[in-house]
């Protein structure tokens, strides 16, 4: 199968002082296929989030390449990257990352507004994605009137609404209690299985690890172990 994401000798170094260079990502080569439910795991400071940012085009590598759907995003200009992220990548962040002054449906609609999608299609997709994450009754609520789990589900719905090739989630359950975290994972797993949506998580949450079809262990910026679970 053709890889959805492929990194080639990907490096991201941070110059902390004149003589100290932090190698957050150090020569990573991974390949992720469509429909995978992959967790990037490792201890704090191992480079999980940096790797996720590089894959998502939020950060530029020091060296190496990132291919997403065949496009080398490491070579794109900031403007091209913005457009590429908007059209091909969905993000779910650790903190509840909704725009507080917009309702749940408006938050979902906003990403489609950026894509230039017409109003009728936007409305239809908002209703569809809210139904998929089980929040149809909460459409007009603002984030402050939603629980943490509900906010993350809206964030997942927003990520899906743009019809991305992949959804990248940076520790999505970190701020949720155990029960809410499991419920969110169930929603994402169902989306993965029902619609073939590709998910890549950075996490050290055991619950995600158990549900992931593949675990990529990162330590000191390098892939320590890459294990695929049999279905």
């Amino acid at each position, binding site marked *: 199968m053709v890889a959805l994401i492929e990194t080639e000798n990907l490096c991201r170094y941070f110059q902390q002082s004149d003589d100290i260079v932090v190698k957050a990502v150090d020569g990573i080569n991974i390949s992720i296929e469509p429909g995978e439910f992959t967790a990037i795991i490792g201890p704090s400071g191992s480079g999980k989030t940096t790797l996720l940012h590089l894959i998502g085009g*939020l950060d530029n590598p020091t060296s190496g390449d990132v291919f997403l759907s065949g496009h080398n995003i490491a070579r794109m200009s900031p*403007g091209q990257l913005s457009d590429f992220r908007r059209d091909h990548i969905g993000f779910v962040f650790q903190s509840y990352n909704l725009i507080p*002054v917009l309702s749940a449906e408006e938050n979902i609609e906003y990403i489609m507004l950026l894509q230039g999608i017409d109003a009728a299609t936007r409305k239809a997709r908002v209703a569809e994605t809210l139904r998929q994450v089980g929040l149809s009754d909460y459409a007009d609520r603002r984030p402050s009137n939603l629980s943490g789990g509900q906010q993350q589900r809206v964030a997942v719905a*927003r990520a899906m609404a743009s019809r991305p090739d992949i959804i990248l989630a940076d520790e999505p359950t970190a701020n949720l209690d155990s029960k809410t975290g499991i419920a969110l994972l169930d929603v994402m797993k169902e989306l993965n299985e029902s619609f073939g949506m590709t998910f890549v998580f950075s996490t050290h949450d055991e619950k995600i690890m158990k549900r992931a079809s593949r675990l990529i262990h990162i330590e000191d910026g390098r892939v320590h172990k890459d294990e695929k679970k049999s279905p």
Partner: protein
Amino acid sequence: MLTLKLAIRNLARNTRRTVLTVILIGFSLSALILVDALSLGMLDILVKSITKNVVGEAQIHKPGFRQNLDVDLYLADTQNIRYTLDQDTTIAAYSERVISGGMLSSSYNVATGLLYGINAEAEGQVTQLPAAIIEGQYLSGKTGEILIGNKLAELLEISLGDRLVVTLSEADSGELAQALFRVSGIFHFGIEGIDKGLVFTNLAQLRSVIGITSQQSHEIALRFTDPSLATLPSTPVFTQLNSDQLETLNWLELNKPIASIIEMSGLSSIIIGTILFILAGLGVINSMFMSIYERMYEFGVVKALGARPARLAWLILLEAFLIAVISCFAGMTLAYLLGSYAQEHGVPLGEFEVSGIAIDNRVLMRLEIYQFVEYPIYVILLTVAAALYPARFAARIVPTEALQRSL
């Protein structure tokens, strides 16, 4: 529409800050309008004082007469000029004058002054001399009448009915001539130079004393049907009569110090406006930056989702535009309410003098439409311009850095 909704809700997010910014900009706008209205009110007093006193709205002379008031530089044939003025529909009234410097002697004192020979009726249509009489009577045309200012009366220690001997030079010959007058009226314009230095008598008598004919005079003062015509170079009287033999000047050209004051008043409005706008602009920059810093993580997320820098900049500019519009409504309302009151009741500034002209203790403000159209447009443009820097900052936010701030 969603972007507009987002901008409006962002403003409502921190109501106190938005209200404070609106107050700052609104007050600046209302202050600018009121300062301008007050300035116009003061100018009205100055202009009225000048054009309604002996100057009139414009004057016709022989070139060079104004420089040293040479009695020999008279208009040799006023008949043609009068004919032209009679045909000109923009001229409401005009008054011929004979002017000569002379020595004024009473039984107690001596002073120098300018003697004006005027046609009583015509002069009353051009200036407010009849209304300025505080004692006695205005000129009736009888021989021997003379009007003097109250300050000059004090100096010469004379009052109504007292004798006043005038010594002056005859035109052309330069011979000294003397004439005896009796004070028939005392006037008060509130302008030191006029109240202390001018006297008025009948035109025919003064012509006779200095030896010029009834077709000759030194000056013709004009009043237009519309006072604003006086300052337009295209007004017919200026284009038709100005030549190397005739000099037609408007009241601004006749009063250089006042022209400077008027010019300065425009400049002072610009200076005050600039200071107010700079303060308001800094307030906007500060407010928008605080708003951006509060939403740093949010902007990081939005950029991560794929928002182009221009969209974030547009959002900030839209928020600034909305603040400016709200501020303008608040500022215009305040200015209108205060200005309308001051337009009717005046602003008590105490008594003071500008270029020899006494300003009453109440100045009536003058509100104009342009103050409520042009100034708000400037405020909106400046507010949006002030938001360009914060907008640029927001546009340049790096998603990974912004996201790390809150993580």
